[in-house]
């Protein structure tokens, strides 16, 4: 057996001598569990497909078979590989859980995306290959929503700039700094749905909203914030930004506070003014935090839906529609499960590709700036 390893010593793993009988038992155990899993799945598939009435009332037995198989897999690791197998148990549950709740649903999602499945259809779901994806390429409303996402994504740059300014302000030695920190965070604590109603449907209401009245006082006689495409887009973006800028700000503030003060002080000693100190010292040093903050914000932005659904329903004429709000309508109002899933899956792939590229570019950029 392995002995406890003293501090500073390198652990040497010696494979347990596994008896052939024990190893065989492990293999048989796993094979039996695998047979159970595959057999359960097969019976249920045959039943659901109408080939043979040999399945169960529902798919739940397959879940139980999976759990049995997962336990058998762990046991097999320990029985056949000894100590090395025990180490695998640290990772295996998490891996199997991920498989069950993330990887399998994603793959299943691609299967659903290949179905012509409208919940109201008398014929039920049936396989139609890539037809949903082909339809998607001809769906002007989906591409309009994607185009709008471009605008919303570009607006993240503005959000970042404002958030950086606020973070610098809150990092400075100003009065009531703690009060302002909490105050600036408040919008982030609000539900976007509440913001939709408080701001979009109340403050900005055309007839009696205070924002509309102020706009009238300032000379805009018909302050209909959501009647024209660009004003509506900007109004929606402003609301979303108001909620989310504090999130970027707090990440940047944490970065600023973690930054060694000696560096900025040294810059001052060397004669750098505030502008130079920011661009030559603070901004480059904050790049890793900035990239993280912007990336997280981009991910959130790509899911924008609640404010749009509540305030404009995507209008006027699709001007504020987002991919998520469009998919929401396809699902909720039109019960078009197959097509809606195809839209969501394509969007998922787009997001993964986009974020991967963005990460690589920013990593390269961060390196070059800091070098």
């Amino acid at each position, binding site marked *: 057996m392995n002995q406890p390893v003293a501090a500073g010593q390198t652990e040497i793993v010696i494979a347990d001598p596994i008896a052939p009988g024990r190893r065989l038992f492990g293999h048989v155990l796993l094979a039996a569990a695998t047979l159970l899993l595959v057999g359960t799945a097969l019976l249920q598939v045959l039943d659901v497909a109408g080939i043979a009435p040999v399945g169960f009332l529902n798919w739940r037995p397959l879940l139980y078979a999976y759990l049995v198989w997962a336990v058998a897999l762990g046991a097999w690791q320990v029985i056949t590989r000894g100590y090395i197998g025990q180490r695998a148990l640290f990772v295996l549950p998490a891996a199997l859980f991920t498989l069950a709740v993330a990887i399998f649903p994603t793959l299943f999602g691609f299967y659903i995306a290949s179905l*012509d499945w*409208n*919940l*109201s*259809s*008398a*014929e*039920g779901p049936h396989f139609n290959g890539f037809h949903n994806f082909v339809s998607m390429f001809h769906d002007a*409303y989906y591409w309009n929503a994607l185009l709008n996402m471009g605008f919303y994504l570009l607006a993240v740059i503005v959000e970042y700039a404002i958030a950086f300014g606020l973070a610098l302000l809150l990092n400075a030695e100003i009065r009531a700094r703690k009060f302002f920190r909490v105050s600036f965070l408040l919008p982030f604590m609000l539900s976007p749905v509440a913001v939709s109603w408080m701001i979009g449907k109340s403050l900005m*209401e*055309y*007839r009696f909203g205070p924002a509309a009245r102020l706009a009238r006082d300032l000379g805009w006689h*018909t302050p*209909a*914030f*959501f*009647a024209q*495409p660009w004003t*509506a887009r900007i109004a929606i973006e402003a609301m979303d930004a108001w909620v989310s800028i504090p999130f970027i700000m707090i990440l940047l503030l944490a970065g600023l506070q973690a930054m060694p003060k000696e560096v900025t002080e040294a810059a001052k000693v060397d004669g750098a003014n505030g502008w130079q100190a920011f661009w030559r010292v603070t901004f480059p040093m904050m790049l890793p935090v900035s990239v993280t903050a912007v990336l997280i914000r981009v991910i959130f932005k790509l899911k924008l839906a609640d404010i749009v659904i509540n305030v*404009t*329903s*995507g*209008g*006027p*004429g*699709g*001007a504020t529609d987002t991919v998520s709000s469009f998919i929401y*309508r396809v*699902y*909720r*109002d*039109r*019960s*078009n499960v197959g097509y809606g899933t195809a839209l969501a899956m394509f969007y998922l792939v787009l997001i993964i590709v986009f974020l991967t590229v963005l990460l690589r570019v920013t990593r390269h950029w961060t390196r070059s700036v800091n070098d």
Partner: protein
Amino acid sequence: MKPDVYNRIMAAQANRRAMLKGAAGLGALAALNGAGLGAFTRPASAAAAGLDTELRKKILQIPGVGKGSPTDADYRKVGELCLGGTKQTVKEGELKGVELTFMGLNNQNTHDFLFRGFLHPWEEYTGAKINWIDLAQADYNARLQQAISTGTIDWDMLEMGAPFEGDVCGRGLTSEMPDWVKNLIDMDDYVNYLKAPVGTWDGKLYRVSIDGDTHNFNYRTDYFSDADLAKAWKDAGNKSEWGVPKTWQEVQAVTKFLKGKQVKGQDAYGYLDAPKPWGGFGFYFLGSRASAYAKYPGEKAWLFDVDTMKPRVNNPAWVRAIQDVIDALPSEPPNQINADPNETGFAEFLGGTGSMVVWWGDVGAAAKTSDSSVVGDVCGFSILPGSDDVYNSKTGKWEKLSSGPNYAPNLAYLGWGIYVMKKVDSDEKKKKAAWSAAAHLGGKDLALWTSAYPSGFQCYRNSQHHIDEWVAAGYDKDYITSYLDSQFNSYNHPNGAIEPRIPGIFQYYSTAEDILANIFAGKLKAQEGADQIAAAWEKLTDQLGRESQIKLYKAALGM
């Protein structure tokens, strides 16, 4: 929709005195309502109709108009007093051991909340027990469709709107109504449009109605009795008298005329459209503009060709209705394109903006009773405006009827009903329990109470049209007469535009809403957009199964 109304009614019960004072301005109202559109039948009195007036009077005093919102105790009292039908058909304790699951809505403390109270004495008497599945309205369609699609129907009784009958009854999932229930709930008392084919499929009856729905026309009496506007109208060269529009052509003319005018120091507006999508429900509002153009007398279909399911939404009648909206929007409030029906009816019209709006009965019910309404004393009602001409889809020509303008009330949504699922048929005792509970909720006397108090349900029986009962309960006579006439004259209209109760009907509506939003935003011409809607509907029909849809559409229209 309706839950708002009844909440408003209750919120305003404290204002009942103010409401009763608000009879001023209604003198002209009855004349306006009756003159143009004609009153249909109205029973003389409840006593003459052979109703149990004592019982009805008694339940209307629970808790009493102006005495605050009803509580669960009140629901139970009403349920207890209305238990007569149950006692006729079920022996005490006969259904002991039966458990039923009921799926319905929990909108703003109405629907299921009332059913629980109404059914509590029924449970005590029969011995049966009911378990509840409460849903928010937004979740209703998804829950229903998913359960049907995945074969996981976990309820025995269902509160459902008639538009979903295609999805449920059309698939043979509901239990056929036994004869003893038909006798118990007096279906002859239903308003015309809720009689068969509504609630039926292939000649079999499935539904116990508990609610009625129609769009009516709500207008401002002060606008249309304003001397300055009348003079300006004449000065503008109009030959007709200034008054409440009776056709959509007049609605358009008045809406354009009012642009830039002021009434009582405020900007005046005419008709209020509801262009913003509203989960499919917004399409009803275009339907109300289109029905007089598209619903040809004597022909049941107006949305699809019955033999092919070819959409009519791009025919000249519908395109004219779409064009009307496009033409009217510049004369409506600047933010109108972002107004959904809820905002149009409640925030705008009841808030004093605009002079004409189409809605379900909720707007009229709330006009006097809602604290936020400022138009209670100046609100009038009629059935939907007509049209000088009507499109005959068979000849492809517009026709002027010798009888005058064509009227076609949009009987939108058809109201809620109670349905029993087929799965209870295998257990006679359970089946009897389910139908007994459904009959109890669909009783004639209970119906009067639910329409007079916050419940989420409106009139659906002719016996609810006895003005004397409403007046005795505390309503202003002229006002309630005008309002109820607008409802019942729509319900019983011979040319009512019936909802196509086919599977996925809200998918059609929702798809149309997206395209209409683009039309109203100026991205598409009316005909171009209508053609897109028609193409999308054709695609949807193919996806849902054309032959099946044709069959179900015919069944829905009783053909």
